[in-house]
Every structure is written in C-alpha cells, then in structure tokens.
C-alpha cells in the first residue's frame, strides 16, 4: 500500500507470441505504467483455463488481464477465438459469485502494441482500485445461515 491507498494486485496472462512481446515492446519504448500487474507468459490466450483466473482471484489477486493476439493473428490459428468464446462464460460465473466482471479483462494486444498494453494495464489498475479489494474468501465463504453469498448481497451493500 502506498500512502495508505489500496494498491490492487493484478495478474496478467499474456500470450507468448503477441501480448507478452507487446508488453516487452512497451518497456523497450520506455512507456510507463503502474507496476501492479505481474505478467505470466502463456503459450496462447486459448490456453488460459478459466480455473487460472479463478485461482488467481481466489488466492488474492484483485483483478486479472487475459491478453492474446488479435483475431486472425493467432499463432495457433484460432486459440484466441477460443479465449474469446470462453470469456463471457467466465464473467457470468464471476457475477454469480458476486464478483464485479470489470475485474477481469480480455484484450487483443499485438507485439507492436506496446502503447495499448501500457494503456490497458493503467486502465485496469484504475478500475480495480476504484472497485476496492476483492476479498474472495470473504465474499465466497458460506454464511452462518448456509446461504451462499452472491450477487444480491453485493447489490445490497
């Protein structure tokens, strides 16, 4: 925490071919963005199992970025398309857990789009900072009355 302000912890799953290289390119271009996101290199955005995202959130991350090649540019033909199809389901599931879908973002970032990478990380950091800590365990813990805490609960807050 800096000046007592909440500093979100973000995990980024970046495809090895486009987005991870795009993130490197942001560095090479000396673009500055918040240090909150820690990147994990993945072979393909299509490899990002929804459980990776859930795992990250459950273990203490406040937000997740999934970034892959632009549609049509996938190194593995259509892996990013799979990521794209899976994403809405993931958001729906998170919503049912009472988790704001804005915490998880899917973006297409090419190896040349360092600027976009820096912008997306900055935006996601601000979005999650505004939402506050996720507190997965608190939100998903069974309540004493046995009712799973969910969307309605969050809406009542």
């Amino acid at each position, binding site marked *: 925490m*800096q000046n007592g302000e909440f*500093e979100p*912890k973000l*995990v980024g799953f970046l495809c090895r*071919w486009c987005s991870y*290289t795009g*993130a*490197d*390119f*942001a*560095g*090479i271009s*000396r*673009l*500055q*963005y*918040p*240090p*909150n996101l*820690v*990147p*994990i*290199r*993945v*072979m*393909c955005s*299509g*490899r*990002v*199992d*929804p*459980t*990776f995202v859930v*795992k*990250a959130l459950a*273990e*203490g*991350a406040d937000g997740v970025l999934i970034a892959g090649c632009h549609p049509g*540019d996938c*190194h*593995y*033909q*259509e*892996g990013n398309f*799979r990521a794209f199809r*899976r994403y809405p389901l993931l958001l729906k599931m998170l919503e049912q857990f009472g988790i704001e879908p804005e915490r998880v973002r899917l973006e297409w970032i090419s190896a*040349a789009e360092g600027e976009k990478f*820096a912008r997306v990380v900055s935006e996601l950091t601000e979005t999650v900072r505004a939402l506050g800590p996720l507190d997965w365990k608190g939100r998903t813990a069974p309540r004493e009355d046995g009712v799973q805490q969910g969307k309605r609960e969050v809406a009542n807050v």
Partner: protein
Amino acid sequence: MSDAPQEKGPRFHAPLRVGVYVCRCGGNISDVVDVEKVAEMAEKLPDVVVARVHTFMCSDPGQGMIEKDVRELRLNRVIVASCAPSLHETTFRLTVMRAGLNPFLYEHANIREQVSWSHKSTPDEATEKAFRLVAAAVAKARTLQPLEPVRVTAERRVVVIGGGITGLKAAVDLSRRGFGVTLVEKTPFLGGRVARLDKLFPTETPAREVLAELFEKVQNDPSIEVLTLTEVKGISGALGMFDVTLETAPRGVTGPLDDPEKVFSACPVEVDDEFDYGLSKRKAIYMPWKGCAPALPAIDFENCTKCGKCVEAAGGKGIELDGEPVRRTVKAGAVLIATGFDLYDHTREYGHLPNVVTLPQLIRMLDEEGPTGGRLVWNGKEVKRIGFLHCVGSRQVAGIHEPPEGGRLNEYCSRVCCTATLHAAVEVRKRFPDTKVFDFYQDIRTYGRGHEDFYEDASNADVLFFRWRVEDQPVVEEGSSAPLAVRVKDQLSWNEELETDLDLLVLAVGMVPRDNRELLDVLKVPSSSDGFLQEVHPKLRPVETAVPGILLAGTAQSPMDTVECASSAAAAAAKAAAMLWSGYIELEPFIANVDEDKCTGCGDCLAACNYDGALSIVEKEKDGAKVKVAAVNAALCKGCGACVAVCPERAIDINGWTLEQYEAMVEAFVADYDENAEEQK
C-alpha cells in the same frame, strides 16, 4: 557437453537446489530495481541455495559464475532474472546445459522490459514486482522436469513460391546445396517482372540475359521441378515436414507446335498484353517473349473462347482445350515465399489525363523488343519533351494524400524508383538527344552501390530537375500548347512556380504489397503495417516469418531492386538449408502429455485441437480391459494448450507449462512476503 553428472541420474532425485541470478544489466535494471534486495529476499525462498547479482549476467564471466555454481553447489534448478526471454532465455538454457544440467530445468524472469524500463518513477514497487517475478519463477522451477527436444526427420525439399528472379535464384542456390526444389509459378511463364526490364542498373546487364542463365540452370537441373500455372492451395505440417497442396491449371498447349506463329495468328481473340503493361495486344494463345521459359506457348483460358481455330491451325497436334486443373501434395521441409510485388495503381490520380505512362511502361517502350521497337513515340508522335514524376504512390502523407477506399497510405519509400527513373532519363538523353528531359522530384534517393552515378550522369546529360515539397504536390493538367503541363513550386529556384509543357509524363509508380490474400491466408504469415510480409527480426532473423520453416525473400518482403532480391534469395536459401541440413529438426519439448490414468477418452481435447493429427484417441490395454485414451503426436503438437483448457479430467497437460506450474506461479505472485522474515514460504 561436459563430463559433469547428468541430472537424469540420481542427482535429479536429489533434493531441490535452486540458484537465483539477478542481473543489473549495467544499470538498465539496477538503476530502478534494488537487485541486491531482490537477491537477498530470493535467497530466503524455499529450496534456494544461492542468490547472486552480476552486472552483465549474459557476459562470459556472468555465465561462468552460473556454470561454476551449478557444478560446485550441485544446483539442479536455475533462474536468471534479467531481460526479456526473447533475448536470453536460450542463452541461459545453454549455460546450464554446459554445466551438465538439462536445459529445461532453467526458468527465466523478465525484470527489465516489464519492470525497470516500465516503472522508473516507482523503484520500491518495481523492486517488489521484480521479486514477485523471481518468486514465481522459483515456484515454477521447483516443479520443472527435465525434457528432451522432440526430433523429427526433415524433408530435404523446399517449395519455392514465385518464379521471378528471387525464386529462380533461391531454387538454384538450394539445389547446389543438395536440396530438392519445387518451384511454383502462378503464371504460365517464369521470369516475373525482370523479364519485362531492358537493362539492369547498375551494371547495364540485359535483364533477359540474366534470366536466360537462370532458366538454363533451373530447367536442366534434375533436382528442381518447375511447375508453372501452379498455386499453393493448402499447407499442413510444420518445419521439416510440410505437406503442400498444389493446384496446376491446364496450359492448353501440351507439346511443341510446328508453326507457332501460324497458330497465334489463327486466334481471333485479342487482349491487352500484360507483358507490355497493356501497351500492346496479344492473342489468347501466346508466348510473351522470344526467350521465355518454358518455351512452350500457353492459352489464356480467361479470354479463350474455345473456338478451336488454333487446334485447326496446329493440325490437331499439341493443343488441348478441355484440360482440368490437377491437384497434388508435395512433401517439403521448408517453404520460401518469393511472390514479388504489385505496382501502385495511379489511375485514381492520373487516369483521366492523356499522354501519361508509368515507368515500367516507358521501360517497355525503350526496349528494342518492346511495343514501339525501342522508339520514343506516343500516339504516333515523337516525344520531344518528356517528364518524370517521382514518388507516385510512395512516401504518402496523411492529410496530403488520400488512401484508396478501404486501403492504406503507402508511407514507405519504394527505394527502386529514383535510380530506375534516372537510369531511364539518362537512357532517353543518350538515345534521343533531341528530346528534353524534365525530372520532378522531392528527394533523390540513389542509395545503392553505383546508383549515384546515374544521378551524376543525368545532371551531366542536361536533365532538368525540379524539386517539390510534399505539401506542394505538382499539378498535372492538360496543356494548351502541349498535351500536358506540369506546375511545380520549385525549391531549386526559391519556390518559384514553374510550368513545363510535356509530350509525355512518366510516373515513377511505387511498389505495393502483392494482392494475394488467398495465399497468405493459407500460409498464415503475418504482414507488417505497410502490408509487405514481415520478417521475425530485421537484423537477427531477416528472412524468416513468424511461422517456423516459412521463409521470405525479395519484394514480397519490402521494395528491393534486383541486386537486393538476389542477395535476399541467397540468404533465404542459405537459411532453409541451415534449418534442414542435419536431416532432422529439434522442436521445443513443450508439447501435450496425457496422463493415461486420468484420461477417459472423451475426445474433448480432440475437438479443441487446431492441428490435424496432433491428437488422436487410441485403444489401450489397461488392467486387462480395452480402454480409449488420447495420444499425442509429438511432431505435430505445437503446445498451444487448447486441449488442456477443455479437459474435464485434467488428464492432459503441456510439458514445461503445466497447470501445476501455473498455479504455483499464481500463488507466488499474490502471496504476502515479509522482507524481514528469516525464510519465505
């Protein structure tokens, strides 16, 4: 390899001993990240035996330090935190290998591109992020298993796409290195655009002599198969083992004709001759030029009416009007794209004007075998005042030039046109001393060896130069006393507005990327933002595309002159040979792996897999019963992990990038660390 113990022996089963090496990168990292602190904290991570800092880890002393530690401290996992893995991951894999460790027991942490260079103003947070990356790398490294590269047999054949000067040169070079070549040309004839040139700068060698030499070599070489009228329709497999599907259209002419001229004149169809860029006509059955290869006429079935007059004239011999396209598959280790360029279409800006030709058209006119027999005439009149306009369709600027509908501006320089223009201008002055030559340019870029001579020759030959600024584009209109008038604000005479009457204006049209979307969709190679095909790295890997085993050369990659095309062809041929030389290909071992105990043979992974044959469901004997399980073809699997993400049993995984490893990394990322603790969890 050294005689150091191999980790596959008892040592691999020994307790984990992790070494962490944090690089300062000469200040690139250490000016922002507190590398000493990162190392100090890393040393407290579980199983970490040693953590050290070095100013340049990639230097010989840096690598030597790691090798020494691996041997003396009996390390069995190594992490280097330094620059992007694209730069030095392989370097350090080799470092640990030299010390006797399996190279895949190495893990890389990127704390330069994605930390120090990106978080300069927040050094504390940058240091924390660097440490988290190291912690995650340690977490992953603790679960790494030794892997062996996948070896597949490499096909010693290369498919070269494009029979222009680049493809021809590459084919000859490859054959001389002992490789089979399938040279695929879409049109009925080899030679491409160079066949339509007269003399080549800077040596003034006749273009078709150069081609004739290459034709002879290619056609007489038993290891080069030339397929004209052929296109690539499909590709599967990978580096070393592609299956390339080719489709050959019928030529119409199946054998030599006794009297070709008689057959041609019998044809009632007349169309624009593309060989002369539309300046002349040809028949539907034709040969473009005397020395063409193959020296067999072809029928242009797009325009042929199948009236049968040619068959009659040929006496029923050697012509077949009802041929069908033929498909076949060729096995090849690599594919070389040499598909060339298109010319900028100037008709949007200049199509409405009379007496305008492109530079390639003028070159045809200057050619003694060309449409005017080498005379400088237009519409029957001798050309006495000729102008050259540079940069038509090159170096376009937003706000000044309009992109075509749905298209892009050509912001690049086409490189060839300045010298080609001056070459032609000098030629005109030499051969037609009564013709005045005017040159309208924004910059003269005669960059190549010997090119500048043409600029000097043009100046000495009284070519009159006018220099315009990009914001003051020359205005070309129909003239009152001559067919055309060009108005320029001329920088060379202090921005005076000058008007020049012309009989003929020559447009130095630039090169544009070839419109062959269909082929590129098949090959899945990326284009650069200018539309030309993109190499992996302009200096380090200049002839490779992002698809391993698919190489590129010539003007498919960027504007080049013939000299540059030839050297790029030679480079691509050498690269293809280097890739396939050993007869086998070593692939990254990051491929799918099935846990047969967990696999239920449901086939979800198969449905998710993008690669034909990479996964299959096979029957196996298990506890006396037959069960179905997924099986991986190591040579075809690319390791994308699409299968892992859909497996309901978590039975399939990618070696080196396992679910367990990702989870370990995620945990390490988000864990709470206490920098004062005795030991981190």
